[in-house]
C-alpha cells in the first residue's frame, strides 16, 4: 500500500510538471526560497521545486515525503537563516510564515516576500486553512491550474482512504509524540491530523480541543481520560530511546487499554505542523495501518 501513497505524491508532482507552460511565461523559472516545510512540500507538488529551503538537514526526520530534489540547497535553520547563502541563491520569491514576521524587513531587500498563514490563533481547522494557503501560493507563482489539480488529487486520495476503510469496524485513535517516558504531546482539533482523520472517517479518541496548532502537552497518565476500551494509541517516530522500555515497566501503562496487544502502534515520522501533503501522508500511513490490522 505504500506504493499507492507514494505514487500519489509522485504523480501529483509529475502531473504538475507536465502541464502546459503557465500563462505568465516569465514565472516558469522562478527561483523560490521557502522557510517552511509545509510550503516547501507544497511547492514540489505545484511542480516548482524551491532552490533553497531552511532546515534541509532535518527533512528526512520530520517530513520524509515528498522527496526533495538533490538540487535544493540548505540555507540554515528557519530560526536563523544564513543570509550570506540566501544572497548567493538570487531568489525571486521568499516564502515565509507569520512566525518569521520579524524577518520581513530583512528579507524584502533580497526578493519579493510572500507570507502565507496556516496556523492562526482562533482561526479554526488547519486543513481548510492549508488548502486556502495552497491556492494563494499558486496565485502568487502563477500555478493555479496545478494547484487545483493537486488539491483535487488530494481530495480524491482522502476519499479513497475513506472508501478503503468504510465497512470496517474502526477504533477511535489517539495521536501522540512521546517527549519522554512521562510526557507526550497529543494531537486533536483543530489540528491538521485531526482534520485528516475527519476526512477519512476515523474518530479522534482525544476529544478535547487543544491550542491553535492542534496539540496539547500531557502527562502519560492523562491518557486514561480516553474511556473507549477499543481506542488505539498511535505514536509517531522519532520516539526517544528510553520511552518504550520504561512504559512497559509502568503498572499504569499496563492497565491502560493501549498496552493490550494490537492497541498501540508506531508510525513513521509525519509532520503535524505541515500543509496538504503532510495531511495526505498521514492519511495514507494511517489507512495502511488500519487496513493491515482489521
Amino acid at each position, binding site marked *: 500500500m505504500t506504493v499507492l501513497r507514494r505514487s500519489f505524491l509522485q504523480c501529483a508532482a509529475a502531473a504538475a510538471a507536465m502541464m502546459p507552460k503557465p500563462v505568465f511565461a516569465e514565472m516558469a523559472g522562478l527561483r523560490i526560497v521557502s522557510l517552511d516545510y509545509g510550503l516547501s512540500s507544497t511547492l514540489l507538488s505545484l511542480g516548482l521545486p524551491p532552490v533553497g529551503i531552511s532546515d534541509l538537514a532535518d527533512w528526512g526526520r520530520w517530513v520524509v515525503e515528498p522527496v526533495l530534489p538533490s538540487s535544493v540547497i540548505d540555507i540554515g535553520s528557519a530560526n536563523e537563516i544564513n543570509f*550570506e547563502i540566501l544572497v548567493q541563491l538570487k531568489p525571486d520569491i521568499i516564502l515565509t510564515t507569520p512566525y518569521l514576521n520579524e524577518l520581513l524587513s530583512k528579507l524584502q531587500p533580497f526578493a519579493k516576500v510572500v507570507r502565507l498563514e496556516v496556523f492562526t490563533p482562533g482561526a479554526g481547522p488547519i486543513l481548510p486553512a492549508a488548502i486556502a494557503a495552497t491556492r494563494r501560493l499558486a496565485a502568487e507563482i502563477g500555478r493555479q491550474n496545478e494547484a487545483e489539480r493537486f488539491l483535487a488529487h488530494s481530495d480524491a486520495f482522502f476519499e479513497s482512504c475513506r472508501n478503503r476503510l468504510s465497512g470496517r469496524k474502526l477504533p477511535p485513535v489517539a495521536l501522540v509524540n512521546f517527549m519522554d517516558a512521562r510526557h507526550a504531546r497529543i494531537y486533536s482539533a483543530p489540528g491538521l491530523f485531526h482534520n485528516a482523520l475527519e476526512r477519512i472517517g476515523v474518530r479522534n479518541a482525544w476529544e478535547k480541543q487543544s491550542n491553535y496548532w492542534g496539540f496539547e502537552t500531557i502527562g502519560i497518565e492523562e491518557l486514561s481520560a480516553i474511556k473507549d476500551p477499543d481506542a488505539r494509541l498511535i505514536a509517531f517516530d522519532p520516539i526517544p530511546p528510553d520511552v518504550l522500555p520504561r512504559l512497559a515497566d509502568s*503498572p499504569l501503562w499496563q492497565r491502560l487499554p493501549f498496552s493490550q496487544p494490537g492497541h498501540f502502534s508506531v508510525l513513521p515520522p509525519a509532520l503535524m505542523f505541515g500543509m496538504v501533503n503532510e495531511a495526505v501522508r498521514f492519511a495514507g500511513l494511517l489507512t495502511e495501518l488500519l487496513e493491515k490490522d482489521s
Partner: protein
Amino acid sequence: MTASRRDILGPALVTLLLFCAGGVASWFLAAPALSAPTMSAYDIERMVLYYSTLPRLATALLAGAALALSGALFQQVLRNPLADPTTLGVSAGANLALVITSLFLPGLLGAGRDLVALVGSGVAAAIVVSLGARRGFSPYSLVLSGLVLSLWCGGLAAILTYLNQKYLASLFIWGAGSLAQQSWVIPVSLIWKLAVVSIICAVLIRPLSLLDLGESSSSALGVKLIRLRAIVIVCAVALAAFVTSAVGVIGFIGLVAPTITRLAGARRPAQLILWSPLVGAGLLFFADSVLQLVAGELGDFLPTGAVTAIFGSPLLLALLPRLKIRHRIQQAAIQKRSRRWDTKIPIIIAFSILVLLLLLSMFVGRGVDGSWTLVFGEYSLDILSIRIPKIFAVLASGAMLAVAGAILQRLTGNEMASPEVLGISAGSTFGVAIALFSIAPGFSGQFLFAVIGAIIVLSMILLGSRRSSFAPERVLLAGIALSAMVDAVVGVLSSTGDPRAVLLMRWMSGSTYLVDGMSAAAETVIAVILIATAFAARRWLDILPLGPAPSAAVGVPLARARLALFGLAGLLTATATLTIGPLSFVGLMGPHLAREAGLTRAMPQMIGASLIGGGLMVAADFVGRTIVSPYQIPAGLVSALIGAPFLMLMMRRKA
C-alpha cells in the same frame, strides 16, 4: 526545657498546617477516583489513583524532604542562611550534566542517570565551594557564585536543547521539574536514597551542632572540621543530585523550608535539620497538589519546579537584609604596582590581535557548497553588507560588557561579579518574553520592550538598595535573585512547548541574527559614548575598591558615586545584552584577562578589557558563523562555551 519545647511547637504546627492543607488539596484530586463506583473489569480511575496520583504525592513529599534537608545541611555547614541546592548551582549543575548526556551520549542515561547527575552537581558544588573557601566562606560571595553558575547552567541547558530539538521540548519539561508519575519506581528509589543520607545525618547532628560554637571551640572539642564539612557537603550534594535526576530541577524548596522552620522557632541545628525536611515535604506536597488543581482548571501543563522557583525567588530578595556583609578589599589592590611599560605592551598586543580578528572575520567565510572562501567577486558587497554590521555589533557589545564587568568587579571586589548578574539582562529577557507572548511585535517592538524591561529592573534594584547606600553586595544579589525569577518564568513558558518560546530562546542565546546596519551603527555610537563615560570615572574606580572609609576620606561621595557607576554598568549591559544575550560571560572574562595581563589600574584595565572583550566576541561570532555553516551557532553561546572552561581555569590557578 520549656524553651526547647516551645522551639519545637512552631515547626510542628507549620508542618501540621502544610500537611493538612496539602491533604485537603489532594483530597480534591483523589476524591473523584475514590467515590467512583468500583467495577471489577476495568477501573482506570483507581489505577490512575494508585499509579499516578499517589506516586506523585509521594514523590512530592520525598523530593521536598530531600531538598529541604539538603538546604538545611548546606546552610548549617556553610553558615549561610541563603544556601540551598538552587542558590549554590548544585541542581542546575546536575541538570546541565543530564541534558548534555541525553543529547550527546544517550546510551549513558539508562543505568547511569544518578551517576551523571552526581557528577554534574559535584562539579558545580566543587566550583562554588572552592570559590567560597578562598573567601573564607563569605555568605555573599558563595551565593553569588552559586547563582551565577546556576543561571549559566540553566541557560546553557536550555539553549543546547533549543539547538538540538526542533519540535520536542521534553528536556525543557524535565529541566523545569515536572512531578508527573506513572509508577512507583521514582518514589521508591528516592525513599531508600533519602533513608541512607538521613542515617548519615543522624550520626552527624551532634558534631554539626558544635559547629555553632565557632571554629576554635569546636576543634577543641574534637570535631575534625574539614572532614565533617566534606561529609556534610557530599550528603547535601547527593540529595540534590538524586532529586534532580529523578524529577528535574525543583527551585528554591531547599531555601524556603529551612527559612520557614527557623521563622517558626527552630533555633538549634539539630531542630533545624530534623524539622526542615518535614516542612519541606509538606511544602512541596501542598504546592504540587494545589498546582495540579489549578493546572486542571487551566487545562495547561505547568511544571512544578519552575513554579516553586517563581514563588521562591522573591523570598531570596526578602532574606537579603539578613546576610552579614563585610566589605572586601579587592585582591588586585594588594598586588605589586605595575611598571609603566607593563601597561602599554599588553594593550598594544590586544589591539593588534583584535585587528587581525576583525580582518579574518570580515573576509573569510563558507560558500554555498560549504567550502572555505575569501570574499571576492560578484557577491562580495552583498556579503560584506550582511557581515560587517554583525561584526561591529558584537565588537561593541563585547567591549561594553567587558567595561561593565570591570566596573562591577572594582565596585564589589568580587571576581565573580559580571554584568549578567546585575539582573538587567534578566529584565530584558522578561521584557521580550512579555512582548512575544502578549502582542507579538516586530523586532523594533521587541527592542523597545527589552529596554523597558531592563530599565524597570535596574530602577527596582537601585530603589531597593538605596537604604544600604548601594552596597555592591546587595545590589548584585538583588539582581541575581531577579534573574533567577525570570529564569523560572522562562522555564514555564518553554516547557509548554509553545513555538514562540523558540524566539525567546534565540534571544537568550545571544544571536546577532537580527542586527542590521542601523542597529549596529546605533550600538557602536552608544558604546563609544558609554565607554568614554566610564573612562571619565576612572578616579572613582581607582579609589572605591579601597573601601568606604578611605573613599570618603579623599572626598568621593560614596552613595552618589556608586549609584552613578551602577547606572552606567546597567546601561552598558542593557545595550550589549540586546545583541549578544544574557549568557556571554564576556563581562567576566574581559576584565580578568586584562588584570592577568598586568593591567591593574582602572583606566588600563578598562581599555584592555574592552579590547579583549570585543576581540573575544568577534572571534566567537566568527566561529559560530562558520563552523557548522549553513547553520549558525549564536555568538553569545559560543562565548559562553569558552567562558565555562575559563571559569574553571581561573579558579585552579588561584586556588
